[in-house]
Structure formats: structure tokens, C-alpha cells
């Protein structure tokens, strides 16, 4: 079951991610002194912090829809578990390979989004076995515990230069995975679990009985509560890191609630406007493009890094002997923006060509293995 709303949202997330990564990795420190600390919200117009929550939320939604289809096909729970765990392990392995080859070996354990989504998939295999009442308790625990864990682990000590800087020790590696890495389980686990839990309500058909409150109203109420909670935290504890201050690193509670509201509302709105409005309509070319991009989101994630990080490393190596010498300082911001736009535009025909010629992709490899 492929829903256009999910494809559109994933495409938007990918394009936002490409833009943010190009600007941050190529240009965020361009023209600034070396001592200036570049935070994730250095440029107000960059959609920083939007793509990752959407991606991870959609991974939960997609897992739920995939699971429903497998169960309808009559696949045994054991087979589903095996497939899920294989996919999770594949993503974790791919994440490590990606870290080594893109972020260089010293960043093997930076706990980027691939290792996180892989871990989340394996945990969703456990979550799906829980009674319906339990996953919300799990989310609540993760949200409540995360600020305390960040405090316990001394989060700022690992992020002195606005990136995750760790020693290759067991404690740092494990803490990175749990709390202080780029996408640690606490609190990022909330997004895939929320996607998994909310998918049936958000993607529900309209209620046949007009007298009964439809799922839409509950979703609207939830979005309102999440947004209100986020605003309240920002108002009451706006200065407290990890709690009220809107930050992605660490993902503060206000950020979590706010982004959950955004992700849920976006999906619900798109589902209402696109999937429900014309479920039988033949796909237009923009819709087809979104489907192709969404289907190859993993390839695009890898490709856009290779396209802008590897030249950066090679250039640095060639000019100074240090591959990371020009990280964040290579280009002016407008040039990085143009490059990001160019990549997005070029990716569509490339992916269409890959589909037409049936070239092997990383998604195909994952499907084959899982």
C-alpha cells in the first residue's frame, strides 16, 4: 500500500535535508572567524531540524503500513520479525559503512540517522508485540527521561564545537548511542514509535457514522496538545537546555513536542488533501516524481553526502593535507544553495533513469537481503 501523502512528505524532507546539509557542510562558517561556534540554527531561513523528525516519524508510519500489508498477506509473526530485524541490521551496518566512508573512520560511532533508524526498526519489532496501551507509556518515559539522561551524561561536554566530539572508548560510544550522539535513542525513539502508534488514526478512513467523533478530531486534539505543550515549555522553561530551549542537539522536550505536532499535522493534512480527496486518480508527473524520490530516499541520502562531502575531503587533502580543512568554510552560502537545488533537480531524472534501466540500488539490496 503506497500512500502519496507519505511520498510527498518524504520528498519534502529529503529536499530540506539536502539543502541543510549542503549549506551547513559547505558554507555555514564561510567568512566567519575560526573561533565562531556555528550552531544548527545559525541561519534562520534554513529548515534545520525539520527533516530528521519527519524522516524518523515516517519510518514508523511506513513500518506500520508495511506490517499491516504483511499481516493481511498472512505472513507469520516470526517471518515478519525476521524481515524487520534483517532490515534493521542492514541499516545499522550501512550506517557504519557510511560513517567510515563519508565521515571518515574517526566518526564511525557518531550515531547518525541510519544507525538510529536501523535500531528503531528493531525496537519497533518489540513495540508491535506490546498491547496498544503500552507504546504511549514508552514514549512518555523516553520524553521524561531524556533531559535527565542528558544532564547525567553531561551532554554539552560532547558538543563543545557544535558537533559530536567523542573519544573511542566504550563509555563514550555507548553514551553516544543512548544519549549524546547525533541521533541517540533518547529521545529520538519518540518519533518512529509515534509514527507507528499514530499511523492508524492519522491514515484512518473518515468515520461512516456521523454521530461518532472521527479519528481526525482526535488527531487534531493531539496536535493541539503537543503544540500547546511545546509552547508552554518554551514559555516556562525557555532557558533550560534540553527542556524548554528549542534545540535539535540536544533534542529538547519542547523541540520533540513541537516537531511531533508538525509531523503529525503534516501527514494528517496531506492524507486528507491527497489520499482521501482522489484515491483513484491516476498519478500526475509531480506525484510520480515524489513516488520515485520517496522509493529511493535511502539512495538519495547516501548519494547527496557523497556528492558534496567527498569533493570537500579531496579538495582539503589536495590543498592542505587535511581532508576536513575546508569543512563548513569552502563556499559562500548562495553557491551552496544553488548546488543543493541543482542536486535536487538532477536527482529526479537520475532516479527515473535508474528505475527505467533497473539499475541496482541500495534499496534493492536491502529488499534482497531482508
Amino acid at each position, binding site marked *: 500500500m503506497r500512500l502519496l501523502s507519505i511520498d510527498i512528505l518524504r520528498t519534502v524532507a529529503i529536499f530540506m535535508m539536502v539543502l541543510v546539509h549542503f549549506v551547513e557542510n559547505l558554507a555555514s562558517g564561510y567568512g566567519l572567524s575560526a573561533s565562531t561556534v556555528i550552531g544548527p540554527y545559525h541561519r534562520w531561513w534554513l529548515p534545520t531540524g525539520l527533516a530528521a523528525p519527519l524522516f524518523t516519524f515516517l519510518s514508523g508510519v511506513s513500518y506500520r503500513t508495511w506490517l499491516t500489508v504483511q499481516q493481511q498477506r498472512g505472513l507469520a509473526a516470526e517471518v515478519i520479525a525476521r524481515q524487520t530485524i534483517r532490515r534493521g541490521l542492514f541499516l545499522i551496518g550501512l550506517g557504519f559503512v557510511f560513517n567510515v566512508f563519508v565521515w571518515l573512520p574517526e566518526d564511525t560511532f557518531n550515531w547518525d540517522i541510519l544507525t538510529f533508524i536501523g535500531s528503531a526498526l528493531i525496537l519497533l519489532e518489540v513495540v508491535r508485540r506490546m*498491547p496498544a496501551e*503500552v507504546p504511549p*507509556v*514508552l514514549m512518555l*518515559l523516553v520524553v521524561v*527521561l531524556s533531559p535527565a539522561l542528558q544532564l547525567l*551524561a553531561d551532554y554539552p561536554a560532547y558538543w563543545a564545537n557544535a558537533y559530536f566530539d567523542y573519544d573511542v572508548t566504550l563509555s563514550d560510544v*555507548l*553514551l553516544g548511542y543512548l544519549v549524546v550522539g547525533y541521533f541517540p535513542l533518547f529521545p529520538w525513539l519518540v518519533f518512529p514509535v509515534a509514527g507507528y502508534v499514530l499511523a492508524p488514526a492519522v491514515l484512518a478512513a473518515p468515520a461512516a457514522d456521523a454521530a461518532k467523533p472521527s479519528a481526525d478530531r482526535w488527531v487534531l486534539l493531539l496536535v493541539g496538545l503537543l503544540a500547546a505543550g511545546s509552547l508552554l515549555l518554551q514559555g516556562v522553561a525557555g532557558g533550560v537546555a534540553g527542556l524548554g530551549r528549542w534545540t535539535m542537539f540536544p533534542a529538547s522536550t519542547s523541540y520533540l513536542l513541537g516537531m511531533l505536532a508538525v509531523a503529525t499535522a503534516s501527514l494528517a493534512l496531506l492524507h486528507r488533501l491527497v489520499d482521501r480527496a482522489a484515491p483513484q486518480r491516476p498519478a500526475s508527473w509531480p506525484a510520480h516524481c515524489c513516488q520515485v524520490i520517496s522509493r529511493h530516499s535511502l539512495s538519495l541520502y547516501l548519494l547527496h553526502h557523497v556528492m558534496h562531502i567527498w569533493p570537500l575531503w579531496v579538495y582539503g587533502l589536495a590543498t592542505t593535507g587535511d581532508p576536513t580543512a575546508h569543512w563548513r568554510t569552502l563556499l559562500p552560502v548562495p553557491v551552496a544553495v544553488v548546488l543543493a537545488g541543482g542536486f535536487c533537480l538532477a536527482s529526479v531524472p537520475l532516479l527515473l533513469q535508474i528505475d527505467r534501466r533497473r539499475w541496482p540500488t541500495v534499496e534493492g539490496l536491502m529488499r534482497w537481503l531482508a
Partner: protein
Amino acid sequence: MTGEHTHRGELPTSATVAAELPTGLPAGSRIEPAALPGGGDLLLVPVAPTAAAALLPQLLAWAEQSDNAVPPVVVELYGTLVLWTPRRAAVASPADRLPRATAAVTEFTVTAAELGEIERAIAGLWRNYEADLPCGFAVTAADAGRVPELAERYRQSMSLAGRLARLSPRIHQPPQHPPTLAGQLGERLRDRCRLADREEFADDQLETIVRLYEGCGQRASDRLLAQREHVLTWVIVLLLAAETVLLLVDLLATAGG
């Protein structure tokens, strides 16, 4: 023709024929439309004590007009002739006994109609019996949505059992002493329509059905309790996991310096 057939008390669904007074009946004969419980017509014929039997052909023809598929029950007793179908009843009797005979027919009609309704409702419950059988053994997650439906069927079957239990004394009432015309007419009619047997069959069927839905209720309740326990267990596991994570992070942070 009279005693061999079982009358189930069904009311015909087809359009009924308008009741017309048969020809050749004695003066004073009359039809009381919808006088029977359930809306059936009642034909009252005052006759001399020995003349009732001679009216049988006309009364039979009149009674059969309403529904040919149900042959009338005929009872002749002490100069009183009664023809009964669920839709029409004719009573030919000396004028002084007519009210008591009519009362007996009316009372019997009420009992037969009630039993017929119960039998039809039981037939309706049998339609779901096979489909509901698995839930009598175990209510799974897939059946959880059907629990209100099963509960409703349990309510229906218990309600029918109650109605049947209340009806039973009227079917099994002992002969009156000293015997009266009304009492004996009622007794004969109940006997000809085999109300006692039918009540017993209905009781047996209801027992089977009630047993199934009682089992379903028990299984649903077991599942609910197990589900609550399951939720509680998971919450405890999560709390323990949370505590473990807190301890682990604290330990790692301390160990890492």
C-alpha cells in the same frame, strides 16, 4: 388433519383475506375482527347443543381462507366446536357457553403465539451459532471487536430462556378440578398443538445456545483480565528498563570521567 399437525403460531406474512361471514350459519353468528391476540379474527357461532358438528365444513372453509398452508386444529367437546389457526379461530357453542369457550381459545392463542415467537427467535440465534462456536473456546485479538455482538446474543438467549420459563406454567398447567369446558378446551388445544413438546425442544435448544454464549462471555472476560495483566507486565518491564538506562548512563558517565 386435526391433531397430527403442529401449529407454530406463525402469523402469515401474506395479505390476509378479508373476513366474510360464511353462508348457512345460524342467526346471531358474528365475526369479531382482530379479536384474537396477534390480530386474528374470531368467528362466534351460537348453536344448539347438538348442531355444532354439522357446521364443520363451513367453519373449516372459513378458517382455511386465511392460510391454506396451516391446517386448522379442530376440537369438539360437549357440543362445542372449535377450529383454530393462528390467524383465525371459530367457536360454535351454545350461547351460554360461548364466552367461556372464547376465553379459553383466546388464552391458548396468547400462549401459542408467545411460544411461536420464542421458536422463531431461537431459529435466528442458530444462524450465528456455527460462526460463534470458536469464540466459545477462545476469544482472540481478532475477535475482540465482536465481543459486544456476542454479549448481545447472550442477552437475547437469556431473555428467551426467561420468557420460556415464564411461559412454561401456562403450558404445563394441571387439569382443573372439577373439570370445566374452558379448562378442557385449553388442555385439548395445547395437546393438539404439542405445546409441551415444543416447549421442551425450545428449552433444550436454548440450553445449548446459552451454554455457548456463557462460554464466550467467560473467554472474553478471561482475555480482558489477561490483557490488563499483560499491559501491567509491559509497563513494569518498561519502568525497570528505564531504571536500568538511568543507572547505565550514570555509570558510563562516571566511568568516562
